[in-house]
């Protein structure tokens, strides 16, 4: 009766300390201040941190060693995310490391691996994701942006929308239609398109959070070398699904939620003052406790999902459940913050005339974040789509 006994001592003590010291010494204070105050993190901050990690050999905790990964086990990967989140280091930029990198490793040519992977690793090249279109949101496979073969190039025409980071990206991995025959999924291909190619226009979409996050991307007669096709023509849907499955398993999600829960707890403590026993304080406290418990459960859900993914036994319902749960939990947490900060700061979201240009007031950023987080249950598959995916697994049909 010993199988259910926890390990006696923590074999990761030295590793934790190493991470703590690195986060302490190598993440610039101005970066931490941005993360701590919940301001939007842009390419510049992501890049600075990625360069530091790369220099230390920690550029890609989730990649295999042969491509420059760390070779860490699951526990180490999680500790890395946990400790860097606690120290207010920025997260790593996900589109390269988490999304297209693994796709290129799995489906790409040797030339593509050699051309693209090193620049993701050192943070010198920036990626965005050309997926959604005006007529293809949840029903992504009905996308219409076309790629027609012309000599050694594809000629791409169409429009992408909700493209995050397009304004600061060098490359866009793009789902295009190379055939209208057969099932709509079968005619889709994945192209790697340099954003500097003539014929690409990026227009920002003004969003409710007042942050510049998403864009429309127009593609007019854009010539892309055939060498930039990932996998074979018509294999794009397979790549996209491979990518989406990984997108839902980002190990940084839960530690970032834990950090947000800590911040909300701090906010609640600051609010309390003389009103310790007020009914409103109790209502907020119970919501906070339930969210903290949720973070605890989510951590275990994530670790077991990553474990199953590494063993190749992960069911779609598990990664979807994780995405569904964490996105809703992030909204619950930021909802508490909004209830605290809202009355004063919702009306002061954007400073139009101000004597303090460097104002980074936490509460105001929390209102931005509250509004931004509405997208958590929409992007990467809406909660309703996740529920359909999970139900298919649960009901076996």
């Amino acid at each position: 009766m010993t199988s259910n006994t926890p390990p006696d001592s923590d074999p990761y003590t030295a590793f934790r300390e190493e991470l703590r010291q690195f986060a302490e010494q190598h993440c610039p204070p101005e970066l931490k201040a941005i993360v701590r105050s919940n301001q939007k993190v842009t390419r510049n901050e992501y890049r600075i941190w990625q360069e530091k990690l790369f220099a230390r050999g920690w550029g890609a905790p989730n990649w295999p060693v042969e491509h420059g990964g760390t070779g860490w086990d699951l526990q180490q990967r999680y500790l890395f995310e946990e400790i860097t989140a606690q120290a207010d280091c920025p997260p790593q930029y996900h589109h390269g490391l988490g999304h297209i990198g693994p796709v290129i490793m799995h489906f790409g040519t040797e030339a593509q691996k050699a051309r693209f992977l090193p620049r993701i690793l050192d943070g010198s090249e920036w990626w965005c994701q050309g997926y959604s279109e005006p007529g293809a949101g949840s029903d992504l496979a009905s996308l219409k942006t076309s790629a027609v073969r012309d000599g050694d190039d594809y000629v791409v025409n169409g429009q992408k929308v909700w493209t995050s980071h397009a304004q600061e990206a060098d490359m866009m991995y793009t789902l295009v239609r190379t055939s209208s025959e057969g099932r709509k999924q079968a005619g889709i291909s994945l192209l790697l398109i340099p954003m500097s190619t003539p014929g690409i226009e990026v227009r920002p979409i003004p969003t409710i959070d007042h942050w510049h996050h998403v864009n429309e991307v127009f593609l007019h007669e854009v010539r892309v070398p055939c060498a930039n096709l990932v996998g074979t023509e018509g294999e794009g849907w397979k790549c996209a699904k491979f990518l989406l499955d990984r997108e839902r398993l980002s190990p940084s999600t839960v530690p970032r939620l834990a950090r947000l829960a800590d911040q909300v707890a701090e906010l609640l403590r600051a609010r309390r003052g003389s009103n310790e026993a007020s009914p409103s304080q109790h209502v907020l406290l119970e919501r906070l406790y339930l969210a903290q418990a949720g973070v605890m459960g989510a951590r275990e859900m994530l670790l077991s999902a990553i474990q199953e993914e590494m063993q190749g036994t992960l069911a779609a319902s598990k990664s979807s459940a994780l995405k569904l749960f964490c996105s809703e939990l992030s909204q619950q947490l930021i909802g508490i913050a909004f209830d605290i900060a809202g009355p004063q700061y919702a009306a002061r979201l954007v400073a139009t005339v101000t004597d303090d240009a460097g104002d980074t007031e936490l509460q105001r950023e929390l209102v931005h974040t509250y509004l931004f987080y509405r997208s958590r249950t929409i992007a990467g598959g809406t909660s309703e789509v996740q529920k359909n995916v999970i139900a298919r697994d649960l009901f076996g049909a």
Partner: protein
Amino acid sequence: MPFHASPMFPGDLYDTTLRVAAAAPVTETFQAQEPSGTWSQFLALGWQAVLVAEAHGGAGASLGDVAAIAEAAGRHALAMPLVARCAVVPALLGQLARQPAAAELLRALAAGDASVCPVLEADPAAMRCRTEGEVVVLDGCLQGADLTEPATHFVFVARDQAGGDVLMLARRDALPGCALTWLGADARQTADIAVAGVELPAACVLARGDAVQAAVGYAQAVGALMVSAQAVGAIGAMIEQTIDYLGAREQFGVALATFQALRHRVVEMYVAYENVRGMVRQLVLALEARGIEALRDVSLAKLCLSATARQVAESAIQLHGGIGMSRELPAARLAMHALSCSLQWGDRFFHLDRLAADSVLH
């Protein structure tokens, strides 16, 4: 393949308990004079000894092993006092084992010769005690003693004249018979025992003052966590049975499982289940490793589990429609069981108050 819940702590203990529990009949009368066949099997299997240290004749196993038993029992809504007698009592007496009375009793319950009913959730003020020379005199009432299966001893908290708490041990036959007996919503059988001027030897006192809170606090956390494991078992089984029912039942010419509104409600049950399952599994290991440092997390988990048990129980009844109201339906009994688990060893408000009182926010 439709959903099938996977155990948090798989192994022999889980499998054996599941097999015995599956064959257990449902009883709905107060008949705590003789042990049921199912309980006798558990005693013979040594389930009371699992958590008792080897030095006291037990198996010296881990909380994960008891959690395996609790989860399996929960899948069949077993109304037996498994958590109380196989987890809470060993956890409580184990802390007091330097006292001969506690050590002796641990040995007896590990051997299956004794079964100790803990009454730790009642208001201590309901039982008053005063020391007179070599004896302690009791007046008051032991409220809510779980006698679904017979007990040889009670362990309970009384209040002395100075207002201090006293943890006491009494043989069952040293106290009078039941004043009132009850059948609970989940078929558990409890009794109130009225006591007037009963004299017990002073050796019955196991702890006084702050030592009572320390010992009972940890035992209570073990109870809260194990009853949560039981609820996880019940919730998993409820989801399976609800899915089966929706697949089998046809209305409007199609299976209910084809309606998106119903499917999405099941998904909500499932996602909540995965979360509490992960929480409880992780905490069972943490409580074993970190002891009382993990008590705050246990309260967080029980608070959350109470909400989830309620949500899943109510959804399971609703999704079964009319038949969900029938006591003959296993899913309905599971719903009652999960609700009951959510209330035992500290309900939602108990844990909320405790979190707010010793909060990290201070």
